[in-house]
């Protein structure tokens, strides 16, 4: 109940400030531009792989920009003191904020379906990969938002919060590149951690349970860390 009270307030907050619109619009125009490059290139195929790949890349920035305000601003305004002395559990606050960001993110992703619609109008894309790609995109986004929220809990400064989130996401995205430099168990671990390595299967139309579990675990772990981070705020 409290979770939804918090979520609802934040959703209204998103729509009442220009910041979220700007971030969403930037995301849409950037993915749109690369979509146009993709489909107008020679031998272009009628698939969503291109746009989903680009969307996946831009999620690294989109997610922290969506979440940066959520907990940082509470600390800056001091409203955290009210929130944490109201009869509300710390996890309800964190979850509520997370749900709000997830809804904002979904709204943005739904708008990219416009490009998919164009594909269907002008070509015959395979529906299977389209669906799996979007599932992958949502899971990837869910994990990235949790990382972004942790960033927001760590600082009262929104910019710092966003930078921390982006940095962690970039590291998580590209550890597989490091993985390719080493070998053996180390390589497996690094590949296993990489966000990007788990996205590719979805774009090929493959829904591997291991990948789904991976994204859900990342989400859970970072939400848990965020809750712990809020709890330790009390001790300072």
């Amino acid at each position, binding site marked *: 109940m409290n979770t939804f009270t918090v979520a609802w307030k934040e959703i209204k907050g998103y729509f009442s400030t220009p910041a979220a619109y700007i971030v969403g619009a930037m995301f849409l125009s950037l993915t749109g531009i690369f979509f146009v490059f993709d489909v107008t290139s020679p031998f272009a195929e009628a698939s969503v792989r291109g746009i989903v790949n680009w969307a996946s890349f831009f999620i690294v920035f989109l997610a922290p920009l969506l979440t940066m305000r959520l907990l940082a601003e509470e600390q800056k305004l*001091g409203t955290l003191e009210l929130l944490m002395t109201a009869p509300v559990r710390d996890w309800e606050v964190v979850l509520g904020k997370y749900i709000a960001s997830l809804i904002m993110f979904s709204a943005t992703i739904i708008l990219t379906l416009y490009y998919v619609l164009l594909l269907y109008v002008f070509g015959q894309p395979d529906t299977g990969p389209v669906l799996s790609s979007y599932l992958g995109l949502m899971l990837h986004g869910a994990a990235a938002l949790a990382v972004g929220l942790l960033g927001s809990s760590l600082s009262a400064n929104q910019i710092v919060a966003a930078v921390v989130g982006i940095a962690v996401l970039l590291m998580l995205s590209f550890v597989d590149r490091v993985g390719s430099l080493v070998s053996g168990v180390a390589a497996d671990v690094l590949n296993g951690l990489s966000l990007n390595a788990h996205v590719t299967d979805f774009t090929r139309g493959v829904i591997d349970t291991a990948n789904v579990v991976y994204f859900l675990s990342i989400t859970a772990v970072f939400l848990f860390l965020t809750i712990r981070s809020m709890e330790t705020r009390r001790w300072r």
Partner: protein
Amino acid sequence: MIEVNGVSKMFGAFPAISDISFKVEPGEILGFLGPNGAGKSTTMKIITGFMPPTDGNVTIAGYDIVTDSLEARKHIGYLPETVPLYTDMTIKDYLEYMGRLRGMSRDYINQRISEVIDICNLGDYYSTIISKLSKGFRQRVGIAQAILHEPDVLVLDEPTIGIDPIQVVETRQLIKNLGGEHTLIVSTHILPEVSQICERVIIIHEGQIIAEDTPENLAQRLVGSERVDLDVKGPQQDVLVALQQVEGVREAVRLEGQPGSVPRYRVQSELGIEIRAELASTVINSGWGLLRLDGVIMSLEEIFLRLTTEDELIQQVDPTQEDASAE
């Protein structure tokens, strides 16, 4: 209603408050008086469950604020020192949100919002964005938020800061009226404020309680006086009489000492009069032995000197001009 037992709080190695204990009975208004940095806000943050104490415990309406935090927090309304508000919300939306978080029903919230808007004189600003409000109005929104859910316990950290003089009078009256129904802790560093609204006062200094009394008794203990302690060898009754006759002395008493030791006397004098030389010559001229003489630093007074004793704000208001300045 509120029980604070041996509470301490360390910030690193720095003790912000140490071993604070007190009780507040239901319906009582307790003043929390102390100079800047005394530890008032820290104590309030602990009482409201914002931060856990390093040591000791606090119970609100019988619930421990740490182990039974959620239950305890349901009974509290809190106005933090910084008056935190969501600046991009309207007063109405803000109060509604706080009400929801406190688990109030929609009807109850609507009913209470119109009541607290009335109580806090916010009627004209009902749907104003909070960032456009002046400091004083924000303060009132903070108070409105604290009393919205009719909590048993109200914790107000410097509630009259930033409000204009006429409103200060009204706000103090408002706080006073809240007593009875609510149990209140009000922190302040303004001396007259405490005597106007509180039934009991705790004075805190450098993280420790140094006095606890009714405002009247405290005031009496503090009517400017200075103390001098003397050890005098001589006939006790004569010494006492002689000391009392020194000019400027209000009272002289013999302190209980160890049997066989040189009797010690404590002399109270009016503030600002130097009587030590006069006392010394009186003793010596009478042929007694003066073994010791020192001025006692009255810690309480020293601390009070650092408090805002002048109610500057109030004094600026000439009652005959109240109507004019209210505009």
